[in-house]
């Protein structure tokens, strides 16, 4: 994608550039686009097309059987009077706000532990990374459900310490901690990125700090954190967007219903129920677009505030 604007600019350039070069550039551009074509076709047919049609549908009443009826902004305005919708927003925001920072903290902590040179580091890195490979799978959601059920390993384990919570799956107050644990456990992907970032920090900085008598806490806040801030920013952004999209595990653990008592009615799950169980595709499309807009705004806010805390090498700040 990044190369195509350059190519097209060159190919359309006329005037000062010699004729031969321009023709050469046109051929380059053609070759470029030819190689891009498979991706471009897929992108237009499978992403842009459906997005535009869902934007249109979000202004209609569409039940899949009859042609969509234009109803203007009705879907968007009814959303805010829909208690189930507001509940799904609450559940999802809670999950993003608590789950993402905890997950990143776990990822960073483990990455720092694994950054030292010890025997068997390769093994530990793979072991900690594995959950994020399989974590989104259906089987893990099923295992999770069994682990947190009545008399499951978690219930029994806590009983040893005299904590009798019963099963978490059926308890509306405990389902959110269960989902947060599930996402925190999948810290492998951000951990690997953190590890790569930590390796980039020159060791001299730590050595110099030690000479000046800085302790580990001071070194973390004055060296690791600022040097790692672009990586932290990247991980925060990706994981936040990712958290908004939680679906599969919620669908499986709650049997696609968002229960108990609506405590796992995540945004995307409600969207799915509206579209495919209630046949209200227009409504579901409006929900999808609202999510796109909100995630876009959050990303924008992240980028705006990043100037004050993200330091790129070569910055004068």
């Amino acid at each position: 994608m990044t190369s195509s604007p350059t190519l097209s600019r060159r190919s359309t350039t006329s005037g000062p550039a010699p004729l031969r070069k321009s023709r050469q550039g046109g051929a380059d551009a053609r070759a470029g686009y030819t190689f891009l074509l498979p991706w471009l076709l897929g992108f237009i047919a499978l992403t842009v097309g459906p997005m535009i049609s869902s934007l249109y549908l979000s202004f209609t009443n569409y039940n899949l059987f009859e042609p969509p009826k234009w109803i203007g902004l009705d879907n968007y305005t009814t959303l805010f009077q829909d208690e189930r919708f507001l509940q799904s927003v609450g559940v999802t925001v809670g999950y993003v706000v608590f789950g993402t920072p905890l997950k990143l903290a776990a990822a960073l902590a483990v990455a720092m532990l694994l950054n030292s040179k010890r025997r068997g580091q390769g093994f530990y890195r793979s072991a900690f990374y594995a959950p994020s490979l399989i974590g989104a799978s259906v089987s893990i959601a099923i295992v999770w459900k069994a682990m947190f059920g009545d008399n499951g390993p978690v219930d029994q384990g806590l009983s040893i310490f005299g904590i009798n919570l019963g099963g978490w799956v059926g308890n509306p107050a405990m389902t959110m901690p269960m989902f947060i644990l599930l996402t925190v456990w999948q810290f492998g992907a951000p951990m690997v990125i953190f590890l790569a970032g930590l390796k980039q920090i020159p060791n001299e900085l730590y050595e110099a700090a030690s000479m000046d008598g800085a302790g580990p806490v001071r070194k973390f806040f004055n060296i690791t954190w600022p040097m790692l801030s672009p990586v932290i920013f990247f991980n925060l952004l990706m994981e936040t967007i990712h958290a908004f999209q939680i679906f599969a595990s919620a669908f499986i653990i709650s049997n696609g219903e968002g229960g108990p008592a609506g405590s796992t009615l995540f945004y995307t799950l409600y969207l799915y129920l509206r579209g495919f169980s209630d046949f209200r595709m227009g409504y579901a499309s409006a929900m999808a677009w609202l999510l796109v807009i909100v995630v876009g705004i959050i990303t924008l806010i992240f980028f705006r505030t990043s100037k004050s805390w993200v330091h790129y090498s070569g910055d004068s700040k």
Partner: protein
Amino acid sequence: MINRRHFLTTVAVGTASAGVLAACGTGSSTSGQTGSAENPVTINYTWWGNDDRAERTRKAIALFESKNPDIKVNGNFTDFAGYWQKRATEAAGGGLPDVMQWDLSYLRDYGQRNQLLDLSTVKINTDAFEKSLLPSGQIKGKTYGIPTSTNAFAVYYDPAKLASLGIAEPDGTWTYKEFNDFLTEVGSKSNGALFGGTDYTGVWWMFNVWLRQNNIEAFTSEGKLGFTKDDLKKWWNLTAGLRGTPAIVSEERVTQLAPKSPFGSNVTATEVTWDNFMAGYLGDSGAKELKLVPVPSDDPDNLGLFLKPSMLMVASAKTKFKDAAARFIDFMVNDPEVGQIFKTSRGVPASKTQRDGTTFEGTDKIVVDYETSISQYLKDAPEPPIVGFGTLESSFKRIASDLNYGKLDINGATDAWFKEAEDLIKQNA
């Protein structure tokens, strides 16, 4: 080497021939409404169910094909939840299968939107059917579905579990108070090890039975609600004293056991539901024997019970093989050998010809005997529920579960359900 001209020519020829082939396809099929043994027509048939039903259906299809060499049946199945998503997308694309197994809850959604064939326009023999049953497949004078089989509401219990607690088996003549007392007795005698039952007020169809006991229609013929908020409050108040006691299983347990039922998991002594779930419950619970008795009623002469088509056979409005589809439906609902293949796994066969041609033993006999025993109390089957009924049924269950969790009180739950129902009715008007 592929050069541009050669490539374009190939594509052009390919596209053109595909068009010609497509034209041939439509041409031959419109003219070929009926096939012959040498040149049979192929119809698509789809159903929901497990492997057991798939095996039985394959046998039935093989039998049909041997008796009708001019028709081939191409079968396909999924589970119940995925079934309706698939049909919705097919209907949107105009490609529903020729013949489908159908559920009453979705008959209006598709029938009223002109997706299903009016079966009174084709030849299907319904002489052997109870006249009171057929209207449940009809909407505004058109017949969209033919019932394959019937089911009725019942109270299941496990005699062995009751005996171990020293509780006498019920005979099924009970008021709601007596039924509640029975549930409480199970819970207290077992010291909470066995719950009396699930909260039966969370089951839409039991509410429907209760409405009929009180001579109230669930839905008017205009597709509006036939009952008031007060009716629903009264209904949810019936078990108000039992929630949170060992008489009924806690919602936490129900959620954890899902998709298995508490009764199938041996957590409760009774369950109020359709009588054709027998085989499933026996399999899940491992119980030796389960028995069926009628549901409670405060009016001993009006049990509010009815036979509902447990499933229907329908055809797509766009099928090109109306005649073949009709013959297949006729065969599936009437043929005695098909009854022998399915027994009561689809419910009790609706057609007398099929029912009489089937030998019922063991579990199958319990279900058939139950439906015979209540026959004097049966009323006409309800009309097909309103458009979007599937959604209403699941929101009824969900809101009743919120009630059990204490998230909503009875007034709040009633308001919440009515709001969703009225919104849905307005949406589909």
